[in-house]
């Protein structure tokens, strides 16, 4: 190896080391707000006005106070139900439609595909006014249905499933068909088990998006008994006043379910986003 090449190599190594240092610094900086929230939540309320990381007497009191004084547990249940229903509904209707678009030939197939594709362009946020009147007319305001139903027909989910199905080999289906299996059986026994990565990506992403949605649930849920976590937190956010430990405890409690989802499904979430580039 020449002297020049060696020098270049040390330079690259040095460069990589600097890169690593810079990245660590930023990553730690990124964790500061969450660490600060946790730190504050562990203090007694009286201590939170002194801006210091030190805690004289760490306590979980703020958490128990929040759980006792707010409807947070009810909101958890509400969010869990709505997000599960939305995610399951989206996976079911979108995969069924995508299977037809991917495997069946029928008249107007291209037209149907384009109509569905056009839906990607329509942001739900521009539909809040007609939705409100629609659900008012249906008498479904202040119900879980009002929050969940409009989120289920997601065009991008059909698109993701169709792309995935298009890439699956057809041999298995042909064998099954020769054995006399119908479409529904093939969909249930062959296609869906093979499509697990797509199911996971769509389900998790729909779940998180639905859990975090604020604008539409805020409009239709005014009854504290069925509010979702974001709506509930947004509604009570001023109520704690200067009890900052309680405020931060409520923020952390509100974050826990999704942090758990994230830690469990980190790879699926990241791959799902990378593979499809979907965004709420």
């Amino acid at each position: 190896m020449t002297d020049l090449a060696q020098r270049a190599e040390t330079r690259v190594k040095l460069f990589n080391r600097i890169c690593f240092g810079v990245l660590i610094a930023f990553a730690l900086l990124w964790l500061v707000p969450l660490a600060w929230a946790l730190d504050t939540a562990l203090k007694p309320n009286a201590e939170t006005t002194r801006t210091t990381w030190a805690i004289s007497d760490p306590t979980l009191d703020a958490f128990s106070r929040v759980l006792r004084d707010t409807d947070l547990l009810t909101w958890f249940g509400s969010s869990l139900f709505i997000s599960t229903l939305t995610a399951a509904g989206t996976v079911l209707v979108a995969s069924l439609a995508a299977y037809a678009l991917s495997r069946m030939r029928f008249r107007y197939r291209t037209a149907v595909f384009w109509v569905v594709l056009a839906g990607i362009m329509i942001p739900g946020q521009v539909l809040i006014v007609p939705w409100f009147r629609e659900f008012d007319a249906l008498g479904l305001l202040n119900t879980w249905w009002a929050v969940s139903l409009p989120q289920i027909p997601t065009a991008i989910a059909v698109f993701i499933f169709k792309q995935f199905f298009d890439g699956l080999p057809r041999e298995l289906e042909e064998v099954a068909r020769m054995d006399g299996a119908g479409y529904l059986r093939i969909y249930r026994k062959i296609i869906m088990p093979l499509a697990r990565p797509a199911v996971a990506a769509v389900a998790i992403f729909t779940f998180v998006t639905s859990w975090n949605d604020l604008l539409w649930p805020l409009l239709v849920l005014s009854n504290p008994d069925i509010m979702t976590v974001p709506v509930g937190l947004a509604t009570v956010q001023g109520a704690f006043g200067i009890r900052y430990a309680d405020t931060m405890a409520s923020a952390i409690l509100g974050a826990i379910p999704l942090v758990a989802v994230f830690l469990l499904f980190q790879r699926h979430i990241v791959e799902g986003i990378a593979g499809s580039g979907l965004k709420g």
Partner: protein
Amino acid sequence: MTTETVVRPRPATEDGPPPEQRPGTGLPALGFLAPFLVLYLAFIIGPTIYGLVMSFFDTSLVKPGLSGFAGFGNYTEALQSSDFWSSLWHTVWFTVLTTPPLIVLAFVFALLADRAKRGRWFFRLAFFAPYILPSAVVALIWIFIYTPGLGLIETGLLKIGLTSPNWLGDPNWAMPSLALTTIWWTLGFNFVLYLAGLQEIPRDLYEASAMDGASPWQQIRKITIPMLARTTTLVAVLQVIASLKVFDQMYIMTAGGPNFATRSILQYVYDEGFTNFRVGYAAAVSMLFFLVVLMVSAVWFAIVRRQEKGV
């Protein structure tokens, strides 16, 4: 879709699948499509048309029916309203403040993380975890960080001898403060898209250029950035659209204030429709906003077309 969904017999060689379906009706296809299409018509296509129709009427939230026909009245009113333009401007200003940092920082962090041999999971956790938090949680934490007198940023700056403005309370600083919060919150999404893009660049390109004596910096400029052009276009357009749709942060952190300085276009729709009950007018504003989003998508489409031709 009607009962006319009939299978057309096709030769097996034509595009796509062989004729897997037995001859007969297209009923199975209709059955598979129906659940999605019914919901799609009821909650996406239907409301889009209903919203468009409503935008031409003086519809009120508290009265049944569409009420009187207004023609383009709602649209001309919006286009002449200073509240409409200022909320649109706030939305655009927010987009301008958030989009460049969210692209550049995400790119730089992904680039650095891609070179790191260890600890990828940690970087993913640090940058991506905030993204999955509900806006309300993010808002609660950042309101506290910005609190005058005892906030973390103010105290930190004071230690190095700098004074802070009233972050959320000063009309000039409220929007940059919301932008900073948003950058912290949503950077992880773009970071992940860039990481995926980086992994698709063939490693031998770097090896070959290193043999030729290219420095890391030259590699980034001549290989990485051009190879990531498509990812950057995607990240940019998704970011612009996401930023234009901003609502949550303002609603919770500043309630559109101080003195309406941070009211976004969606909050304007919210206020007009659900506080002033003027849903016809709010529908017209929604449509104008929809038009802006469509124009962004159209520009993206044009750029992607050009990129594909160029390759």
